């Protein structure tokens, strides 16, 4: 595997999978870990709030990062012809779409 040749494929797939996985993780609450700020404690996977709020943001990013890393590395092994046909624009269209999705999901804050 040629790392420098594979890197654009990795980067595009990482950007796409990370963005998609992040919005799924937020919606379905697939946090790899939970942080309890009042107690300054971490818990594995999703835990209910204990003495104050529970923070899942770090866990959502960790879940998305791991899945995107795996997908990116897997994509590096696809045939060279398929790599060359991968459109570089996916690296911005999907994250941009996910940003709009968040705007829609959080519209309640602005319409109340």
């Amino acid at each position, binding site marked *: 595997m040629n790392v420098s040749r594979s*890197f*654009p494929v*990795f*980067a*595009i797939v*990482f*950007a796409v999978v*990370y*963005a998609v996985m*992040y919005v799924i993780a*937020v919606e379905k609450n697939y946090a790899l870990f939970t*942080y309890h*700020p*009042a107690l*300054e404690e971490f818990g594995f996977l999703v835990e209910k709030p204990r003495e*104050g*709020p529970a*923070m899942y*943001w*770090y866990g*959502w*990013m960790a879940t*998305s*990062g791991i899945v*995107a890393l795996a997908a990116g590395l897997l994509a590096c092994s696809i045939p060279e012809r398929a790599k060359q046909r991968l459109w*570089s*624009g996916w*690296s*911005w269209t999907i*994250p*941009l779409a*996910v*940003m709009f999705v*968040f*705007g829609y999901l*959080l519209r*309640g*804050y*602005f319409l*109340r």
Partner: protein
Amino acid sequence: MIVVLLIIHALLAVTLLGAITHQAISVWLPLRKTPGSFVGRVRAVPAASYVNAVVILYVVTATLGAIIYPEYRLSVRVVLQQLSLNVPNGLFELKEHFVAVGLGMLPAYWYFWRQPLTNDYLRTRAILTSILAFIVWWSFLVGHILNNIRGFEA
């Protein structure tokens, strides 16, 4: 301690804002001839030279933001909810998600700005830079607004 970290976070954000804005302007409004004015010099900066700085500053600023985030959840968000300040609360919710999405775009941003630059990725470079610039501006302004609402050591 939190106030010190918040100020460092803000200073890093200003630096990042300057770098990404310079780059975005030079991408969309490049100046080929020798610049004679202040605006001309802003447009004529070598855009590619900002890439590593933007990536490092983005990661460091986001990491510092993540470190001070629990204090926000405990001290600021509660107040916003009690005062029914839904819009600022929503703006911050968007900020956290936008920043997270931006982190995932950094490898692609870095790669497509890699030297030597090819014309094949001209549009991809420009749009990735613009989206990151939007995220950084959004985060900076929302952070500033919330800091003004909550006040210093309130």
